[in-house]
C-alpha cells in the first residue's frame, strides 16, 4: 500500500477533535482538584509557620517553652512563654477523655458490629452517627452548664469546670467517631474467618476474642489514635469546660488550660506581629505537628494491617 494513503488513514484515526481536548482539559482540572488537598495541607503549615517565624527566631526560648509552666504573655516586667502547663493541661484532659472513650467505644463497636443484627444494628449506627454530629460549641455549653452543676452537686467541689468535666465531654465527643472507625475495622475482617471459627464450635465471643479482634487489631489501634488526635485538637469544648486556669493540676477536680483553648482565648487580644501573636502561632505549629504525626502513625498502622492480611 502506498505510504501516503496509510498516513492519511492513520491521520483520520488520530483525529484529535474537540472532544479529545475537552477530555484532556477535564483530566487536568480533576488532577488539580486531587492535588489541592496536598496544596492545602502544605499551605496550612507554611502560613502558620510564617506568622510564627518572627517569634521563633526572636524571643523563642526552646528550653523555657517546653519546661516552664509560666505562660505570662502580658507582663509589665517580663513576658514568659512557658507552654509546659498548657501541654500538661491538654494531656490530662485528653487522657481523661480516653479513659472514658476507649473502653466504651470499643465495646460499642463490638456490640454493633458483631452482636447486634437487623433493625437494632441500623438504629444504633444511626444514633452513633447523630452523636458525632453535635457541634463542639454545644458540647462546651453543656459542660459549662449541665455538667458543671452536676459535678458540683455530686462531688461537693466549689468549681465544676475541671479535668473531669472537660475529659467527660471530650470522651463523649470522641467516642462516636472512634466507635464508627472501630466498627469499620471489624467489618473489614472477612466473614470466612468467622465462619471457619464457628464451624469449629467456637461461641460468638470466642470468635470475637480469638479471631476478629486479632485480625482487626491494626484498625482498632488506628481508631484509638484518631480518637486521641481528635481529643488533642478539640478547641471550643475544652475552652468552655476546663476552667481555663494555667496551672499544674493535682487531681481531676483542678482546672487546667489546653493548648488549643489558649490560642482561641488570646488571639483576639493580640496585635498582629507582636511576640504574643507569634507565640500563639508557635503553639499552632506544635499542634499541627503533633496531630500530623498521630494521623501519619494511624495511616501506617492501618496500611501494615492491610498488607499482612493480603
Amino acid at each position: 500500500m502506498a505510504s501516503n494513503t496509510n498516513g492519511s488513514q492513520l491521520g483520520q484515526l488520530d483525529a484529535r477533535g474537540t472532544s479529545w481536548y475537552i477530555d484532556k482539559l477535564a483530566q487536568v482540572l480533576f488532577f488539580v482538584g486531587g492535588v489541592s488537598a496536598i496544596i492545602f495541607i502544605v499551605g496550612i503549615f507554611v502560613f502558620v509557620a510564617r506568622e510564627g517565624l518572627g517569634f521563633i527566631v526572636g524571643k523563642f526560648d526552646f528550653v523555657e517553652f517546653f519546661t516552664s509552666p509560666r505562660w505570662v504573655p502580658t507582663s509589665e516586667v517580663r513576658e514568659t512563654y512557658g507552654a509546659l502547663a498548657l501541654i500538661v493541661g491538654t494531656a490530662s484532659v485528653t487522657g481523661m477523655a480516653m479513659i472514658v472513650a476507649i473502653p466504651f467505644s470499643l465495646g460499642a463497636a463490638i456490640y454493633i458490629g458483631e452482636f447486634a443484627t437487623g433493625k437494632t444494628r441500623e438504629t444504633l449506627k444511626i444514633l452513633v452517627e447523630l452523636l458525632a454530629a453535635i457541634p463542639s460549641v454545644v458540647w462546651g455549653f453543656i459542660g459549662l452548664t449541665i455538667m458543671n452543676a452536676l459535678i458540683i452537686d455530686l462531688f461537693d467541689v466549689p468549681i465544676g469546670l475541671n479535668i473531669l468535666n472537660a475529659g467527660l465531654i471530650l470522651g463523649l465527643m470522641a467516642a462516636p467517631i472512634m466507635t464508627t472507625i472501630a466498627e469499620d475495622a471489624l467489618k473489614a475482617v472477612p466473614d470466612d474467618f468467622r465462619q471457619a471459627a464457628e464451624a469449629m464450635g467456637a461461641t460468638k465471643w470466642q470468635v470475637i476474642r480469638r479471631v476478629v479482634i486479632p485480625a482487626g487489631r491494626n484498625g482498632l489501634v488506628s481508631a484509638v489514635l484518631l480518637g486521641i488526635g481528635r481529643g488533642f485538637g478539640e478547641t471550643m469544648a475544652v475552652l468552655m469546660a476546663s476552667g481555663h486556669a494555667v496551672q499544674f493540676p493535682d487531681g481531676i477536680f483542678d482546672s487546667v488550660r489546653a493548648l488549643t483553648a489558649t490560642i482561641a482565648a488570646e488571639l483576639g487580644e493580640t496585635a498582629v506581629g507582636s511576640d504574643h501573636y507569634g507565640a500563639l502561632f508557635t503553639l499552632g505549629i506544635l499542634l499541627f505537628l503533633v496531630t500530623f504525626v498521630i494521623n501519619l502513625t494511624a495511616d501506617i498502622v492501618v496500611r501494615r494491617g492491610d498488607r499482612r492480611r493480603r
Partner: protein
Amino acid sequence: MSLFAATDRTVRSRRVQRQVRVLFGLMTVLLIIPVLIILALLVVRGGPMISTEFLFEFPTQGMTAGGIFPALLGTIFLVATALLFSVPLGVAAAVYLSEYAPDNMLTRLINLAIINLAGVPSIVHALFGVGAFVLFFGFGTSILAASLTLAIMTLPVVIVATRESLQAVPLAFREACWSMGATRWQTIRRIVLPNAISGILTGVILEVSRTAGETAPIMFTGAAFFLPFLPETILDQTMALSLHLFVVSTQVPHVPDALPYGVALLLILIVLFMNALSIGFRVYLRGRKRW
C-alpha cells in the same frame, strides 16, 4: 448423660458469651443515654425560648434580650459561601481519586493530606485562615475569609462521601460507555456522575451540618461577637449562630439563663435535622438502587 449434652466447658463458654453480650450492649446504651438526657434537657430549657420573635429579631439590650436573626442569617451566608468553594473542589478531587488516580505515591500522599485536613485541630485551621486569607490575601476579617477557612476544613467530608458514591457505580457501566467510543470525561459526565449524584448530595448535606456547627475557624476570620446591622457584601463581617452561643454563654454578663439554651437548641436542631436528612436520604437510596 446423653451423647449430645453440653459439656461443662461448653456451658461455661456459653455463659461467658451471654455475659459479654450484655456487658457490651450496656456500654453501647451508656454511650447513648447521657446524650439523650442532655438533648432532652436542652429541649426542656431552651424550647420555651424558640419563637418567631426569637428567630427574626435582632439581639437587644447588650445581647441579653431579643432574637438571634443576624446570627442565623450569618450562619446561612457562611455555609452557602463555603459550599461554593468546597463542593466543586471536593467533587473534582473525588473524581480524580476514583476515576483517574493510579495506585502510586502521589495518590497515597493525597489520601494522607485528606486525612490530615480532617485531623488538624480546628483552631489551627483558624490560624491558617488568619495568616492566609485575612492577612496574606488581604480579605480582612470577612465572610469570604471565614468561608474559605471553613471550606478547606470541611473539604474531606465532601471528598470522602463523593468518592464512596463514585466507587459504588459498577465498573461495567463505565466499560459499556468506553466501548462505545466515549472519552473518559464523556463517561464521567453521562454515566458516572448521574449515577452517583444522590450519594454526592448526601455528602453535601452532611457538610452543611458540619460547617454550620464550627466555631473556632470563624472566630478570628470573619465572625463578629455583635453587629447592629446585617452584612452587605462578602467582605463584611457577620455574626454566626455557633459563635453567638459561645458569646452569650461566656462573654456577656447578666444573660437570662434560658437564652443560651435557646441558641444551643436551635443550633443543634439545625445540625441534627441536616444529618437526619442525609441519613434518611441514604437509607432511601439504598432501598431503590437498581444494581
